[in-house]
């Protein structure tokens, strides 16, 4: 049954996630090429010095991309379900509504993990050729909150899209903006390192929120 739900989600979102993945690879490659170009023009020593003295993560071009991909993923997966209340069909499947929607979210999370890992791998390959390992790992750690924002945005967007009551939707949207802001306050390398222990549960804990909207949907709440 879970495989069947994955199959449905794959049919629905394959083009979106293919484009999203290519975008992430493209932007990560651009960031890597940019690093190399700067290194070639001004010398590697100058690049390292610039990184250490200016507190610039050098890859801010990808900062908002995981967030956008996360929001888009939720919209492409769940907006068709809300069209003419198609979600009723999914909730009627004989496997329990938490299980069926949970499987849909697991699919989205899995694809986002894959996209994030590919993006990290591309960044690592480019950066490790021109920068020492200490700086590479610091750059990648700086990018972790941005990718966590992508996961959190995915869950929060599902929470908003599935909610049937418009007043609640507005409140949820405002709250989501504030929550997501927490992940992208600063680009300073290493600034988020002490906060990762609570950013990770915050990002993935948001996966529980769609249950509230689902419960509202099942009770037939409306404005």
């Amino acid at each position: 049954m879970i495989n069947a739900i994955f199959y449905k989600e794959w049919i629905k979102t394959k083009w979106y996630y293919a484009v999203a993945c290519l975008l992430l690879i493209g932007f990560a490659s651009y960031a890597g090429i940019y690093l190399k170009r700067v290194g070639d023009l001004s010398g590697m020593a100058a690049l390292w010095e610039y990184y250490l003295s200016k507190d610039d993560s050098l890859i801010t071009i990808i900062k908002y991309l995981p967030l956008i991909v996360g929001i888009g993923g939720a919209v492409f997966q769940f907006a068709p379900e809300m069209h003419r209340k198609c979600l009723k069909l999914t909730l009627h499947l004989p496997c329990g509504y938490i299980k069926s929607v949970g499987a849909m979210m697991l699919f989205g999370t899995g694809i986002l993990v894959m996209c994030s890992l590919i993006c990290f791998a591309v960044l690592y390959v480019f950066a490790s050729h021109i920068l020492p390992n200490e700086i590479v790992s610091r750059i990648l750690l700086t990018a972790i909150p941005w990718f966590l924002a992508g996961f959190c945005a995915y869950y929060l967007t599902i929470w908003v899209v599935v909610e049937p009551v418009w007043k609640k939707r507005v409140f949820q949207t405002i709250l989501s903006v504030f929550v997501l802001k927490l992940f992208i306050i600063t680009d300073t390398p290493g600034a988020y390192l002490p906060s990762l222990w609570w950013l990770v549960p915050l990002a993935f804990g948001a996966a529980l929120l769609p249950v509230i909207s689902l419960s509202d949907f099942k009770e037939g709440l409306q404005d």
Partner: protein
Amino acid sequence: MENLIECTNLTHYYGKRLIYRDLNFSVPKGRILGLLGKNGTGKTTTINILSGYLKPYSGDCLIFGQPANAINPEVRKKIGLLIEGHVQYQFMNISQIEKFYSAFYPGQWKKEAYYELMNKLKVSPSQKINKMSNGQRSQVALGLILAQNPELLVLDDFSLGLDPGYRRLFVEYLQDYAKSEGKTVFLTSHIIQDMENLVDDCIIMDYGKILVQMSVSELLSGIRLYRCSDAEGDVNGEIDGLYHPEFLRDKLEFCSFKSQQDVEQILHQHNIRYSAIESETINLEDAFIGLTGKY
């Protein structure tokens, strides 16, 4: 006889607007029950409560003995649901949607029933559902229900958006399937003539209440349309036993389950004068309009 659906004292409001109060009905196994009512009388509300997508203000609704909003997956396999407008996953094509659903009903899925219907449509298996007409989509939705082979079918306004040909096709297929396999069906439709040959029992709803709940044969043999010529009198307000009396020029028309003798007595009691009275049997659509009124 075992009841597959049992609703007791169902009451529902949208905000402060009462939809109905203390609605009671049951659907016995093997029967086809049609819920008839004008727009806004609560047909879709009832279907939503039955399918667990609406929590009633009060009352209980049991399906296969389980509360409608907490049916376990094994019992859910026995229920085929058609959502108003023949809603299905639009992003899938004909073969993908069959493959998807078949995984949920191992042992009971009848692939050939679905493809038999699809072959009649003369569409390719790769035809996307969102590129199909309303009528074709209705056949996809029906085909999926037939393939699921459920014990109970819950169909919300199956005739919505269908032209006469597809409506006829839908009714004929459904009737043949339900009667030959002994299935239980609970359905609504706003096209009453489709229901006459299809349903065994009917519930006719008016705003906030049930007007009639009986078998169609009982209803059609009991109800009569009365016409009084050269009639005069005041028919404003309710007259017990006469449904929606209405003057058309000097003719008075109404429906009633009472005998002509009793009707004449009632008219006399209400000072309604006429020169002649005649009555006739009517079809389900006329009975529905007679009971619920034209407005």
